[in-house]
């Protein structure tokens, strides 16, 4: 096996450690230099990374291309709004509630959608996403088309002030780190490896006695719950949610991020979200016509680097590009 010393791999504890340290100290540094704006920006990026990573697990490991992931983000956000109206104040309870609601919605959608496969699966998930989108549009109690503004902030407890962007940033960073670690570990578990097996050859896995439908449903519900958490964090940060964040094009952009970053690569969702969100931010400030460079980038990536940006970060065999069992056999 060849080792590549020169490339900065995230497997290197020194690199990973200093990266994490940089992320933790970002609010302090930003405040010192009067760049508070970037705390909010980094927080938004972390949340998008989280959502993209959940989709990366579903698409990369499970082979399930779902064109409706943004609707679960929105379900989480609206669940938080509804729970706050009902009197729940604790951020933690609200976030858990949002995850539960998104998971329940995904259970219903997934149970029906997973009867189909391939392009038909893409389309039926889109159909349900459109239904949820129009449901949000018709919810006049929560603002309908215009969206909904949170009037009060949820509370964090432990004497923490959620309206301080730095505090919220650390809470989001901590939560995201935990979920990233969870997704990172999940690939190596029996469940993760079974998902990869189903992606590569569902018939074989069924013959081996794996309940493929149930496993896919679990993956669908799990990733939707993480998306719901992302949505709840988003509305906690912005204090605002509107149905437009559930539009199908938002789901398409999430897919684009994952492919851009490297489908099935461990850091695929993270890298894709980082590049897409930063480019969007920079281009939007530079020019009125900020879509076309993104479009050109996508076409270039597909034509010249179909694995996405992941090979830049580490060798392609990490994550769920391949099945561990298969790697043992071929080694």
């Amino acid at each position, binding site marked *: 096996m060849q080792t590549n010393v020169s490339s900065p791999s995230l497997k290197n504890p020194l690199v990973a450690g200093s990266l994490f340290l940089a992320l933790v100290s970002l609010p302090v540094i930003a405040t010192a230099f009067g760049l508070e704006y970037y705390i909010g920006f980094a927080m938004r990026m972390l949340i998008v990374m989280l959502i993209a990573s959940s989709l990366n697990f579903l*698409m990369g490991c499970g082979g399930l*291309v779902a064109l409706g992931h943004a609707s679960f983000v929105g379900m989480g956000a609206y669940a938080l709004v509804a729970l706050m109206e009902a009197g729940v104040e604790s951020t933690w309870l609200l976030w858990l509630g949002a995850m539960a609601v998104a998971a329940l919605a995904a259970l219903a959608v997934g149970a*029906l959608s997973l*009867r*189909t*496969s*391939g*392009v*038909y699966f*893409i*389309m*039926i998930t*889109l*159909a*349900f996403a*459109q*239904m949820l989108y*129009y*449901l949000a*549009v*018709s919810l*006049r109690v929560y603002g309908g088309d215009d969206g909904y503004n949170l009037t009060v902030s949820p509370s964090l407890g432990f004497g923490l002030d959620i309206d301080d962007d730095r505090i919220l940033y650390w809470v989001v960073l901590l939560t995201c780190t935990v979920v990233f670690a969870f997704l990172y570990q999940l690939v190596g578990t029996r469940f993760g490896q079974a998902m990869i097996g189903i992606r590569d050859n569902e018939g074989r896995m069924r013959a081996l006695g794996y309940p493929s439908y149930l496993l896919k449903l679990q993956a669908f519900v799990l990733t939707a719950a993480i998306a719901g958490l992302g949505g709840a964090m988003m509305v906690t940060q912005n204090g605002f949610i509107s149905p437009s964040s559930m539009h*199908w*094009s938002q789901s*398409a952009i999430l*897919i*684009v991020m994952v*492919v*851009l970053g490297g*489908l099935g690569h461990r850091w695929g969702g993270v890298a894709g979200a980082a590049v897409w969100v930063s480019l969007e931010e920079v281009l939007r400030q530079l020019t*009125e*016509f*900020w*879509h*076309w460079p*993104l*479009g*050109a*980038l*996508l*076409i270039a*990536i*597909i*034509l010249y680097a*179909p694995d996405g940006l992941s090979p830049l970060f580490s060798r392609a065999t990490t994550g769920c590009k391949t099945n561990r069992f298969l790697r043992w056999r071929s080694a």
Partner: protein
Amino acid sequence: MDAIFLIEQLLNGVGYGLMLFMLAAGLTLVFGVMDTMNLAHGTLFMLGAYFAATIHVLTDSFALAIVLAVILTMIVGALLEVLLMRRLYQRNHLNQVVATFGVILLADDFVKWAWGAAPVMASAPEALSGPLELGGGLLYPAYRLLIVGAGVLAAVALYLIVNRTRVGMLVRAGASNRHMAEMMGVRVRTVFTLIFVIGAALAGVAGSLMGPITSVQVGMGESILIPALVVIVIGGIGSVRGSLIAALLVGVVDTAGRAFISPILREISSPTFAADVAPALSSVAMYVLMALILIFKPAGLFPARG
């Protein structure tokens, strides 16, 4: 609710359905023959509408506008095929979806740059702007009848091309077994370009005709793309016949949803509830239809490949 209203709505539904069919036919041919997903198909529709609106203003001739718009759309389609789509045929669907999504972003910005962000006015020709008496006191806008007629014509022409001509034979050969067709000496690459351009032409016709009854604006391609995708999925991807039937089904269901859900809800529930829920229900009618069909027939109504 009288018979005249019902017939009017039925005609609206059929007209919309036939428009969707013109888009869906291109999509389903490209998918069926080349196994390629092309999200940028709606972009060709949008370009057709912009071309026709602009040429109509410049030349003051509606017929000329349609013809030139379709030819221009075909040229754009050919360029798209030669420069990009050709390199995507061997890739997986996800790659195709992402690359053609990139085309959407490029094209939308181009249109915004060339025509501005505000919607462009497209008008129907004056001769067709009035209503036409269809007998029995039924007045129906003449322009919408033209759309129905054009849709029927396109469906018949496509049927004849696919089933009665040499090109159609090659298309069917390529669709059922591409490898075998290549072995038999079919220049598959040329056939692919041809199919793509036929699809672009149909999208151009649909776009240039739809311009005057919807607003010509950036993003109109994406908002019609989704119903067109719904149509090809319901019909069974790759089946032209399936997409015709599905397009009529979707057109009628969508129109009926918009026309009847609101009055029915107002009859059976409170007005505020009806006002809240009816628009959402009418918007999702076609998605409910698709979800129901896919749950019972996971490969659509007429699967092209058994």
